[in-house]
């Protein structure tokens, strides 16, 4: 089952866990499983139209799924989804 790494800002919504596991064969399904287990995450992860919140970045292992196939990106049982807030980069 894929693992999801939870950023500090989202941990209060998952009972303080740093990482959780969730079923699913693509990013959409894995996040749906997360929301089903922890409903408080839904409003943070998704906008009203069901798309990823623009300030949420989801990585398949270390690659941003937005420049892969978005929520349709396939996820394997050994993969890790990393959720990170979109923050200003240094410069």
């Amino acid at each position, binding site marked *: 089952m894929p693992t999801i790494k939870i*950023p*500090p*800002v*989202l941990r209060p919504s998952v009972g303080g866990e740093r990482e959780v596991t969730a079923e699913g064969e693509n990013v959409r399904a894995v996040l749906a499983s997360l929301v089903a287990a922890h409903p408080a995450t839904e409003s*943070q*992860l998704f906008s009203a139209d069901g798309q990823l*919140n*623009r*300030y*949420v970045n989801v*990585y398949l292992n*270390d*690659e*941003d799924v*937005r*420049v892969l196939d978005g929520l349709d990106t396939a996820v394997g049982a050994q993969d890790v989804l*990393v959720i*990170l*807030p*979109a*923050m*200003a*980069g*240094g*410069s």
Partner: protein
Amino acid sequence: MGARELENRPCGGRYADVVQSIGNTPLVELRQLSPKPGVRIWAKLESRNPTGSVKDRVARSMLEDAEEKGAIAPGQVILEPTSGNTGISLAMLCKLKGYPLKVVMPDNVTVERTQLLQMWGAEIISSEGAKGSNGAVELALELAAADSRYYMPYQYGNEANPRAHYDGTALEILEELDSVAAFVAGLGTGGTLMGNGRRLKEVLGDSVKIVAAEPMQGEPVQGLRSLDDGFIPPIIDLSLLDRKIFVTNRDAIVWTRKLLDEEGIFAGVSSGAIARVAARIAGELDEGNVVFIVADDGWRYLSSGVYTRPVEEIENLDSTLWW
């Protein structure tokens, strides 16, 4: 014995002053990092700019753009949020051009960045380190809104930032290489990736892959109250990117050392991260040129021990803002 053909230019050019000498940086092949004979990795040494970073191009472009538009004149106070390099570049230019400069910078950057800013005469306004660059942007926007004396170039939203690369860096690369399979740069404001990416795609088409390497911010600098407090620089167009890959601080430092040990490139920590991604992309290709940006030199990170201590012994690995 016949004369060996000169492949490099005999000198870096002749310029009227140091500002004019910004850019025209060397493109150096890194043979040790190349995973196979048909794939060549090239480092564009932006560390060779006058203040030691790629941001000299951006600072010059933004100030000259503002001057051309009549938005600033000598004496005008310039205000800018920065984690260091843009501030240092602006400080050099502002000192030469006669603009007082205030920079808003997180308080968890290396001490050298603070010293360089002071050296060039900039005033530093500290923002909360736990908020990373987000905190600096937020505070600078508040200050600019509250005081009309300030002119803020705002590198995160200023098209003169990517234009410095569209009209500069990318053309220099195309002048040296007939083909580029992949271009890799760090994702901060997005200026380097957008400017180079647009020009390279226009000239080479979709055969060139534009790849972003970004820092995986350590947990101590993810000080957001909510995900809605996130930030995406207005100049970024994600559709231009083919890949976007994060690198941990630890891996970035390991590869910064690798650049030094194997290729003699003394670069900053973000360049280590970018080199790591460049080598990975190179490993996925059968042939072609992979170009990556060495964003700054290593001098401004010396006090952190990244070049001399084992990675395990580097203090504040996750709470320092390395990029």
